[in-house]
């Protein structure tokens, strides 16, 4: 027998069943009708399952794709920053080198 501890590992289905229950909020001033608790639960479960599955098989590339994820944009910014710094160092080195060349040319 499996005893589940909802505090640690509530499944989506259980939680949605508990908090949405009959589908209409009757307490409070606003009356929210929920079209179809079952259908919503199915859809949410499928979304979660497909994300988990994708992670499992390493198909979470969209998390690093700047067009799809803000996290990736953050990474990109860091990369751009690093790129800029490297370019500056390269420029500095190159101009130093060409100075050195002039110097050696003078000596000849």
């Amino acid at each position, binding site marked *: *027998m*499996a*005893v*589940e*501890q*909802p*505090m640690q590992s*509530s499944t*989506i*289905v*259980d*939680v*949605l*069943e*508990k*908090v*949405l*229950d009959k589908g209409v*909020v*009757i*307490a*409070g*001033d*606003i*009356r*929210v*009708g*929920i*079209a179809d608790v*079952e259908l*919503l*639960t*199915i*859809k*949410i*479960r499928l*979304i*979660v*399952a497909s994300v988990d599955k994708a992670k499992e098989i390493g198909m979470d590339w969209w998390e690093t794709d700047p067009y799809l994820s803000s996290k990736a944009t953050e990474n990109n910014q860091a990369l751009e920053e690093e790129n800029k710094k490297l370019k500056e160092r390269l420029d500095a080195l190159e101009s130093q080198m060409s100075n050195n060349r002039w110097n050696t040319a003078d000596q000849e």
Partner: protein
Amino acid sequence: MDKKIYLYGLIPAAEADQQPLPSVEGFDGEGKLYTFPIDDITAVVCDLDPNEYAEESIEQKINNDLEWLQKKAFHHHEALTLLYNNYTVIPLKFCTIYNSEESLQQSIKSNGDKVENSFQLLKGNEEWNLKIYCDEDQLKQQVSQNNTTIEEKRKEIKELPPGRQFFERKKIDHLIEKELDKEKDRLCDHIHEQLKTYAVQADVKKNWGKDVTGLKENMSWNSVYLLPVAKVEAFLAKVESEEKGLDGSGLRLEASGPWPAYHFSSFS
């Protein structure tokens, strides 16, 4: 327009006074949960922007923005779990929202007796769920071998000419299906009757389809129990022993809890 108030749950003021509210982020991800005393009852609430959380826009979001619904439903449940761990709490349904402080106050005051009764009912009791899943192929095998109605029918058929035997066998398959459902109900019902004796209150709920649960087995039973804390252990032991007794039948019992008492604390 006034700010709106999202109501998570109600706790007895005496308990709220003894222990400060843990810090929890509000429904909109900006504000925080805070307590709002109304006589002997303390409401745990957060503020909402009235324009952003109009009735139509919430309904629209719940039914169409699944990511939002998933995130917010979990937020609601997590906040209530935290309250449940610290106080006796009446959990409210997802998206219970009032248009003003006055309206909330009025609503709680006019339901004061009900709330008080609910507190009394919940104190010292826990809400537990039981779901029974059935591997139908396995149970079918058992039914097909051990059912006297089916056994008799089989004997009858043996006496028939071969041509008729074919059609009569089809009928037996149909009979097995029917007996399977009967047997499933009988077993689940029996388990429920046993478990009910531990509970202050018990209810049978709707079974969910396979596409909802995402499981291979069918859900055959879904019930909820309000158990005195002292009886929880015995209840779980009973669940375990019932399951052992059903070995080979294809039935699997799954108890979950304790839950904030979403089921046993109706407030309005």
